[in-house]
């Protein structure tokens, strides 16, 4: 390859010629002829003059007359070749036509070519141009060789030839270029054979490599492999070998020619890049990409070998709260600890990259087993072979168990429980995407069932999911379309025979259907729609209080059920205040109910709100009391005014003896804490009498009234309560007192 720049330069400039001839006539004519043909001529009449000229100047070409007195052409040529920098300057020797001896000698002394002396100047000029061209090509070759050597050095690369010797053996025929020797830390004069090379390879790597080499030679294929080596100076390096076969005239492979390259740094960088691409930086677990890759391989094996694969989606239950309250650093700390524990729950295989697995034997899919982090607080455990569902469940149980112990982050115990969804290949999906989606469905089912558990996917879960989705979008619209309504159930004091307040209960008028809270409140809770719904309920209750106050002098309170998360909102007080101000009613006409479970779930977070609410004169009742696990110590400090005995105890009164004990205890507790106590779900006279006997006079239930639409409250009061027409009203039923009560009740029923 000629370089354009170089040939351009020499084309632009007249080539310089040193002409040496003792014959002055010839010298004159040759000079004239060559000048005429584009050469720049310097003539000297003898060898000595030529050499002194060359001491300070290098022409492009030297033309020497062979036979001259004094230093003749041959001697001049020898001397010239010994001068530094003249190894490659082309020298043309002029000889006689029949002078074969001179011709031979010319080559021996290092002349580039000979030319028979004559006056055919065009031929001479043509020969000179040819020599110049050849010389330029040679220079370029030298230059490119030097560049190649430099490039190879920079790339820690060198070339080698490996040829077949006696007995068609490749053992002895190895030759490395200078750069190639340097790759292994050898000097240019060192001799290295194949055995020396093999000795640099660890015995465990040597045998597979020799086997590979045999195979390559047998198949006459291209060599391209990385070889880990310990060089003679003790450095560990990875040497890349790449070579192609060469063939003799019979088409037999007779040699390999190629390069060796130290690729250690590149390999380290590649490994690092691969690690970054495949592993999560925080936990060092496989990331989503790597997990999906592993899962895909696992499915391939499962398909081929006919076994099941399990995918466990693990989602932490309270990570967001920990992150929000303790900060991201604590969150990260928690994730690292969780990652560490999860890793212990499976046969986690650390390093695994493309290509490795295929060669690792029949049970190699086992090496795919791992825990990875999908992102956020979501982890996945991949079990590449399970015999059945129970197998996967065992691992899930192990995981839940591992997370049961608290994690200490930011100096404080945190409970990082998880919800685990399990999906099995091929039953629950044929692709990784399907399995991920279905394990997600199962995981969400766990969440909605109260978290900290594991569930195996079933199609039923998915369809429930779909229904939920439809319900969710309908519920969104329900708020916009004003489809929500409040029903009111009176609370009565059986002692005085009066209504003492109402509890507002939400209904959803969906088309012709009236949907009960149990069917939509859980979805509302999950989707956070419960917040706008609760706000609406407060406003609506205030509006109703105003209406009733105007209509019949209603002066009691309307109790609104709020989920505990409403108490976590800092604007709850403002919400209530705005609602009552708009209607011009006192704060006391709004009462709030929170379930015992909701209250105790995160007492610390709702406590400030409870105080503020109580401070503005809004009473708080604890709903469903007795079903949760109240801390009695807290109960004494809570700013509450009322306990509502759960309907389940009331229902069993007189049926299950223990219920009476519970009810009695709750009533005693309320009394001693100076709290009002209300019995819910009172359906018959017997229940009423028993409660009354224990000193509980405030009640609510079907015995008195079912929940009524707002417009029916006034008629109920006017037609039932005021005329004292109901059985529960004292004047009708006889006055109940003391020990007679039970006797009376018994007689009546």
């Amino acid at each position, binding site marked *: 390859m000629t370089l354009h720049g170089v040939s351009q330069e020499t084309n632009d400039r007249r080539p310089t010629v040193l002409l040496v001839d003792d014959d002055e*006539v*010839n010298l004159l004519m040759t000079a*004239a002829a060559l000048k005429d043909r584009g050469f720049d001529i310097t003539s000297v009449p003898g060898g000595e003059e030529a050499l002194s000229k060359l001491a300070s100047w290098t022409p492009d070409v030297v033309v020497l007359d062979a036979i001259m007195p004094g230093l003749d052409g041959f001697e001049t040529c020898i001397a010239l070749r010994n001068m530094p920098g003249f190894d490659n300057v082309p020298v043309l020797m002029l000889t*006689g036509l029949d002078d074969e001896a001179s011709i031979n000698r010319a080559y021996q002394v290092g002349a580039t070519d000979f030319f028979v002396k004559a006056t055919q*100047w065009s031929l001479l000029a043509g020969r000179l141009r040819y020599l110049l061209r050849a010389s330029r090509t040679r220079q370029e070759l030298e230059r490119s060789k030097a560049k190649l050597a430099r490039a190879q050095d920079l790339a820690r690369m060198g070339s080698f030839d490996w040829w077949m010797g006696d007995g068609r053996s490749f053992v002895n025929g190895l030759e490395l270029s200078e750069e190639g020797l340097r790759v292994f830390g050898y000097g240019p004069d060192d001799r290295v054979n194949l055995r020396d090379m093999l000795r640099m390879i660890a015995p465990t790597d040597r045998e597979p490599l020799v086997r590979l080499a045999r195979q390559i030679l047998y198949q006459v294929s291209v060599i391209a492999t990385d070889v880990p080596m310990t060089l003679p100076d003790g450095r560990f390096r990875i040497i890349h070998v790449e070579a192609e076969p060469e063939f003799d005239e019979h088409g037999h492979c007779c040699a390999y020619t190629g390069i060796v390259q130290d690729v250690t740094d590149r390999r380290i960088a590649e490994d690092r890049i691969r690690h970054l691409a495949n592993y999560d930086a925080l936990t060092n677990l496989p990331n989503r990409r790597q997990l999906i890759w592993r899962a895909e391989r696992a499915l391939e094996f499962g398909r081929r070998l006919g076994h099941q694969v399990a995918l466990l989606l693990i989602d932490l239950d309270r990570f967001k709260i920990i992150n929000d309250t303790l900060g991201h650093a604590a969150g990260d700390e928690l994730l690292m600890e969780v990652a560490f524990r999860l890793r212990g729950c499976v046969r986690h295989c650390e390093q695994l990259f493309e290509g490795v697995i295929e060669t690792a034997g029949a049970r190699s899919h086992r090496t795919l087993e791992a825990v990875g982090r999908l992102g956020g607080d979501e982890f996945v455990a991949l079990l590449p072979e399970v015999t059945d569902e129970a197998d996967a469940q065992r691992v899930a149980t192990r995981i839940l168990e591992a997370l049961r112990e608290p994690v200490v982050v930011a100096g404080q115990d945190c409970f990082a429980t998880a919800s685990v969804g399990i999906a099995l290949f091929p039953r629950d999906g044929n692709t990784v995407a399907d399995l991920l989606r279905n394990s997600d469905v199962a995981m969400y089912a766990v969440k909605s069932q109260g978290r900290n558990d594991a569930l195996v996917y079933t199609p039923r879960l998915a369809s429930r999911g779909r229904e939920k989705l439809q319900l969710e979008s309908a519920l969104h619209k329900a708020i916009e379309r004003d489809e929500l309504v409040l029903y009111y159930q009176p609370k009565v004091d059986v002692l005085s025979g009066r209504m003492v307040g109402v509890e507002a209960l939400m209904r959803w008028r969906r088309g012709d259907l009236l949907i009960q809270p149990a069917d939509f409140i859980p979805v509302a809770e999950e989707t956070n729609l419960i917040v706008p719904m609760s706000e609406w309920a407060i406003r609506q209750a205030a509006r109703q209080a105003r209406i009733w106050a105007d209509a019949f002098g209603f002066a009691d309170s309307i109790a609104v059920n709020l989920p505990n998360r409403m108490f976590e909102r800092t604007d709850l007080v403002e919400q209530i205040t705005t609602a009552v101000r708009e209607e011009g009613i006192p704060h006391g006409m709004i009462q709030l109910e929170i379930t015992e479970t909701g209250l105790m779930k995160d007492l610390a977070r709702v406590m400030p709100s409870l105080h503020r609410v109580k401070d503005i004169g809004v009473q708080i009742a604890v709903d469903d009391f007795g079903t949760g696990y109240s801390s009695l110590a807290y109960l004494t400090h809570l700013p509450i005014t009322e306990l509502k005995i759960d309907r389940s105890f009331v229902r069993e009164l007189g049926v299950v003896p223990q219920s009476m004990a519970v009810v009695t205890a709750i009533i005693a507790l309320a009394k001693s804490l100076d709290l009002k106590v209300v019995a819910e779900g009172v359906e018959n006279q017997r229940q009423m009498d028993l409660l009354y006997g224990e000193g509980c006079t405030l009640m609510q239930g079907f015995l008195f009234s079912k929940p009524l639409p707002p417009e029916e409250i006034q008629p109920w009061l006017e037609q039932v309560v005021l005329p004292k027409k109901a059985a529960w009203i004292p004047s009708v039923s006889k006055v109940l007192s003391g020990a007679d009560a039970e006797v009376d009740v018994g007689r009546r029923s």
Partner: protein
Amino acid sequence: MVEEPAIQDVMGDFNNTGSERTAGGPVLDAAAMAELRALDPDGKAQLVKRVLATYQGSLARLTEQLAQARAAGAWEQVSRVAHTLKSSSASVGALGLAGVCADIERLLRAGDSVSVQPLLDRFGSETGRVDQAVRQALEQLEAAGT
């Protein structure tokens, strides 16, 4: 034409061929002279004049050298002088002299110092003719004002 003429041509029919070839004179080959002129077509470098003058000088010097060497029996020296004169004579078209020189060189290189004697005599007369022809040519050039 560039090839050195065989001795027979030179010895046998030199004048004839010479007079036939050239209009200017029998000794210097016209074609060779034309070639020489062609090297300096517009005569700016006065190449023909310089070549002829140089040739004249070296002819005189070499003739003298050859005579001395012959007298001393230094045949190698004689051969080298003949070699030098051979190529420059051919260059200016003195083909007859060139042929004589070629034969002298060849015989002496073969070690034959006997057969060379008549050729050496012939060399003497031939140089005289060439010298005269060169002088004439130079005079003509002078007269032509170049």
